[in-house]
């Protein structure tokens, strides 16, 4: 099976939303700020539910926030 990596645009989307802080995003999605930091740095892959919640917080579809790249 080919390995893949999840990347995200959270930093840019936060910037587009009046410099939304990590703490504000954490409060909107019901997780800790550390979890948002870890997701933003691509050190932790969120569950599908959390991914949808983050996308919902930005008012965007989930594919605008997260993308998946497969390494051949």
């Amino acid at each position, binding site marked *: 099976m080919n390995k893949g990596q999840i990347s995200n645009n959270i930093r840019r989307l936060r910037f587009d939303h009046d410099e939304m802080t990590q703490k504000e995003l954490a409060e909107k999605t019901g*997780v*800790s700020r550390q979890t948002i930091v870890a997701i933003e740095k691509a*050190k*932790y892959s*969120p*569950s599908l539910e959390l991914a949808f919640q983050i996308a919902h917080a930005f008012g965007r579809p989930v594919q605008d926030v997260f993308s998946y790249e497969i390494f051949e």
Partner: protein
Amino acid sequence: MSQQEKSVIVSLITSLILFVFFAFYMFGLHEQGRLVGPDVYSLIGKSFFLLIGGGIAVSIVVQILVTIIHAIVTKGYEPMLNDERDKLYSLKCMQIILLIFSVGFMASMALLALEMVAPHIVFLLIIFSMFIANFIGDLVKLFLYRGGM
């Protein structure tokens, strides 16, 4: 440093203190020649429950100290929130603890089966493998929190 990382550090310090204390205590009993005779199993059982009680007390003291020091250094307080990442890391930590403890238990049973050690040593080996499993599990959890995965 998050509350979770602080809890892991408290657990690591507590495990280390108890491990050293228990090792010295058992070595003392061995030196006194009290680890022979029919009362040895009851003595190990009592020591184990003393250790559990001591563990709770040490954990509370270390938790208070770490919280005070952290609050003084960072001048802030972040509430404890247990989200999906914390649950996942706890599960991974538990998996490692169970794996290492199982290896320790199997090794102890193998030593007993091969009659390489006395039965009371097997009890001590099981207790020590529990300590080591807990310690390594906490180290892995701390690594996950610090470095991610």
